[in-house]
């Protein structure tokens, strides 16, 4: 654990810009949380040669009905994704008619519309689910290790992974317009469990080594445990990464960022177990050796 400063620096390299971005820009919420309409249409034939006029025509049709388009982007040659306010059934129907009249026949690939009330409700539920999951995992870790030092280290590692994920998506949202939706929350929750998953394996090994040889220094035990579990930890993550990478590169568009979030969670979870949670144990030990909090208070 001599290189723990390097490990923490590496974490900081990802964490600091991410947290900065979180504070400044937060995350870009999808219609799941804000309410709105996402409409993907695919036209039967290229009525217009270039895409630019089509986008303008669609915009005009919407403004003609007193509706504002938040964004419109091409998602294929004749395919567009339109984001706008929540549409009623009647508004949708009349838009379909006008679009068909002006631009020719099209297929509705996707149409999702959601009132703002439901969005707020979902946000609340998501927040509740994350809190509940964190508490459940916390309780489990506390029960499993019956030791404050291990518990706190495991939880800090969990925070590490959560903020890596949130930070990266905040940056992606700011610079590439990537939105967070319900599935992102799902990925965040899965990250929590991946995170403790690997940490538990490393900690189990540290305790096993200490049990076999109680006189061993914690540093030495940790080094040994990390050395022994590193290969399996990486191997294990690799198999998950293989599956997710294949899905990220080859799978459908709608799961793209969900899979990416899982990928970030898996990699960060593996990294933090070995390079965050374990060094934290050493720091904790050194800190309490020096008198810990007591000493700080005595100074004053």
């Amino acid at each position, binding site marked *: 654990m001599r290189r723990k400063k390097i490990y923490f620096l590496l974490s900081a390299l990802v964490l600091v810009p991410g947290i900065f971005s979180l504070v400044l820009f937060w995350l870009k919420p999808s219609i799941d949380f804000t309410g709105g309409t996402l409409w993907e249409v695919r036209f039967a034939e290229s009525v217009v040669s270039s895409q630019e006029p089509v986008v303008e025509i669609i915009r005009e049709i919407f403004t003609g009905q007193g509706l504002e388009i938040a964004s419109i982007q091409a998602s294929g040659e004749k395919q567009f994704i339109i984001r706008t306010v929540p549409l009623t059934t009647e508004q949708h129907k009349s838009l379909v008619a006008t679009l068909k009249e002006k631009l020719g026949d099209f297929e509705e690939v*996707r149409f999702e519309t959601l009132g703002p009330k439901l969005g707020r409700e979902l946000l609340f539920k998501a927040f509740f689910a994350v809190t509940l999951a964190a508490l459940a995992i916390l309780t489990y870790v506390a029960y499993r290790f019956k030791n404050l030092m291990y518990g706190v280290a495991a939880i800090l590692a969990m925070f590490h992974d959560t903020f890596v994920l949130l930070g990266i998506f905040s940056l992606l949202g700011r610079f590439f317009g990537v939105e967070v939706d319900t599935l992102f929350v799902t990925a965040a929750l899965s990250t929590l*469990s991946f995170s403790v998953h690997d940490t538990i394996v490393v900690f189990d090994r540290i305790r096993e080594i200490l049990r076999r040889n109680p006189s061993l220094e914690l540093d030495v035990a940790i080094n040994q445990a990390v050395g022994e579990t590193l290969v399996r930890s990486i191997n294990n993550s690799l*198999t998950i990464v293989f599956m*997710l990478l*294949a*899905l990220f590169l080859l799978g*459908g568009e709608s799961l793209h960022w*969900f899979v990416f979030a899982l990928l970030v969670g898996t990699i960060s979870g593996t990294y933090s177990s070995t390079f965050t949670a374990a060094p934290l144990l050493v720091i904790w030990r050194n800190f309490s050796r020096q008198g810990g909090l007591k000493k700080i208070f005595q100074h004053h």
Partner: protein
Amino acid sequence: MLKPRSVLIFIILLIIGAALVDLSGYLWPATVDLTRFKIPLRRDLSLHYGLDLQGGLQVSLEADMSGIPEKEKDRALESARAVVERRVDFLGVAEPTIQASRSGNSYRVIVELPGVEDPEQALLLIGQTAQLDFREATGEGENQQFVRTGLTGKDLARSQVDFEQTTSAPQIALQFTSGGAKKFEEITGRNVGKSLAIYLDEVILTAPTVKGKISGGNAVITGQFTLSEAKRLVAQLNAGALPTPIHVLERRQVGATLGAEALKRSVVAGLVGLALVVFFMIGNYGRLGILATMALIIYGIITLAIYKLLPVTLTLSGVAGFLLSVGMAVDANILIFERIKEERHWGKELHEAMELGFGRAWDSIRDANLATLTTVFILFNPFGWSFLVTSGMVRGFALTLGLGVLISLFTGVVVTRTLVRVFYR
């Protein structure tokens, strides 16, 4: 301790059973009918695809309860659901789901219509407020028609299932408002011996014969009802008595092509990922890797069979959960194999190292998977707690991931151990 050979035989039987389930629908019809052999079992064993994979419409409708007294709200919601269900039946959609759900003060009906042809039309039909009215017969024989009487759902206070005192057959009790009672008395008075039809949304619900003039505003409809028929009719009648305008809260609609494309791409991605995992396992662990691959194939066979048996409705996020669980399924194997390598390194005999590897890796495997299962529990929300997410996408992912973890515990530990004991000497 069971002998490895008898466990092996059990596993082989399990694989054969699972494979039979898997192949039905592809090599022979998907419907299993054991009633021929006097076993009361009839099941459709085809794989169910969610809306996002086969295309279709999902809407959350909110019922406006502002005009309904607090204690009648649950009843009104059930009625709204029954009415929507009836309308969906007219659409002739295969495998629709219609659920009532409550979230705080919001009462909802969630409708899923896979493969619906004209979602716009469907929505217009579903979204109407229920119209209930009573009509009397005019004309004779062929020319018989039902005409409006002016007695409508507004005049009906409530309806409930009742039981006849002597036969305890289910019957339907109607209770009219005071204004309704007067109209009803008049109408029944002039229609003794004739039919009085009850219409919901312009379609006839039931047409009982009037036995005599009914005053006081309380009536019963008797007939050969089963309890569930009576309940359904009551819910439909109450939709007239407790009319709740419904509006669209959320609508998700997926075209058939998007789903088919997404499914195809996921399958390709899954196969590529699987190939990578297999190469990796064999490259790293040699013969043990081959056994792990066998366990992984068995995992696939059993998982598919369970998807068909439960059944699990496969969504796009569910496919992601499944693929993720494949990556995690080898987790137990890696823990065990690495442990075996170590025990060997510390100078244990191969045989002893193997047994120790399985034994000592178990604690870590259990702990690690418990953490995942906890998260899965919260995401799947099995009791439908309204303070947690009930989104189909989230639940689809949680279900396949959770099943994956459980099945992989079996294949990763029990199956692999048996394979290793029998084949790895």
